């Protein structure tokens, strides 16, 4: 059954937001930031585009700051939108498959005062494959990309395309926050695709490290996870 009545959607969103808040009070986040800074910083000072795989979108609960997230126009997206609004998260409706151009323009506008959160493999996958919107947004706004790689000590996996993770109550969520990645302006389509490939490779490696950390409990040394300084793969921000 799909919820379509505005009042039901509003109450549904409120209920989801409340359950999510209570649920996350029981989940312990353990975070390592590779640039040694606290993330997210005050958006009046520094702003970033945070990227999280679609299966880990619940990590959004930990980002208590002014942030805008893009949510698709599908009916279930309306319920998620209502929940996000209850949680004080700015929502931009659209996706690469529907309303994408308007959503990109709105995200560019919001980037002047908020952080952005992007699920680069959303809204329909393929899972853990980066689509060009993330790199394009970073290139036109000048905001660095920060990857949020998530691992769970214990989680249910839904039977959806993204295998969405729902952490068990009283489990631990391990997050590795990448160093900021700067994307130059005025990229060609080929350059955007090239950056997507490099970022995807880095993101998959960091996600695997976060999951190993969650499984084994041994905290990795940040030096093991940093991209080599002389690596041609990705330009670190100054």
């Amino acid at each position, binding site marked *: 059954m799909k919820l379509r009545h505005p009042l039901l959607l509003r109450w549904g969103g409120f209920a989801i937001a409340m359950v999510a808040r209570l649920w996350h009070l029981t989940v312990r986040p353990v975070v390592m930031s590779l640039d040694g800074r606290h993330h997210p910083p005050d958006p009046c000072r520094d702003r970033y585009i945070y990227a999280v795989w679609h299966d880990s979108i619940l990590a959004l609960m930990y980002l208590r700051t002014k942030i805008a997230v893009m949510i698709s126009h599908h009916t279930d997206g309306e319920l998620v939108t209502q929940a996000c609004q209850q949680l004080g998260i700015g929502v931009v409706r659209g996706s690469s498959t529907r309303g994408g151009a*308007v959503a*990109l*323009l709105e995200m560019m506008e919001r980037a002047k005062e908020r952080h952005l959160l992007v699920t680069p493999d959303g809204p329909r996958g393929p899972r853990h494959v980066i689509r*060009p*919107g993330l790199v*394009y947004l970073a290139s036109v706004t000048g905001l660095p990309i920060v990857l949020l790689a998530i691992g769970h000590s214990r989680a249910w996996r839904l039977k959806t395309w993204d295998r969405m993770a729902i952490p068990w109550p009283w489990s631990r969520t391990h997050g590795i926050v990448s160093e900021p990645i700067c994307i130059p302006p005025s990229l060609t389509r080929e350059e*955007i695709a090239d950056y997507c490939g490099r970022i995807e490779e880095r993101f998959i490696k960091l996600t695997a490290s976060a999951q190993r950390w969650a499984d084994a409990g041994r905290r990795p040394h940040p030096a093991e996870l940093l991209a080599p300084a002389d690596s041609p793969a990705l330009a670190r921000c100054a």
Partner: protein
Amino acid sequence: MERESLRQALAELVEQETGNKPGNLSDDVILIEGLGMDSIDLVGLVVQVENRFRIKIATDELKGVSKVGEFLALVEKKISAGDAETANA
């Protein structure tokens, strides 16, 4: 600016953005599918149109626009509004 000269200018900008000359730019052609563009191309096109005609298109104004004719009508409206402002200044 007349609709047909505007259509000609749009054809040039689409070609610059996508690298392909658009075949059919009639009013009822769907902007994205009909012109072989994706959302990134369309954002680029909007920015180019803004720069070329010195107008500013708000994202809300683009929400109901899906066809070439609707886009041209919006651009015409913005250009006329800009001309009226200049005349009043």
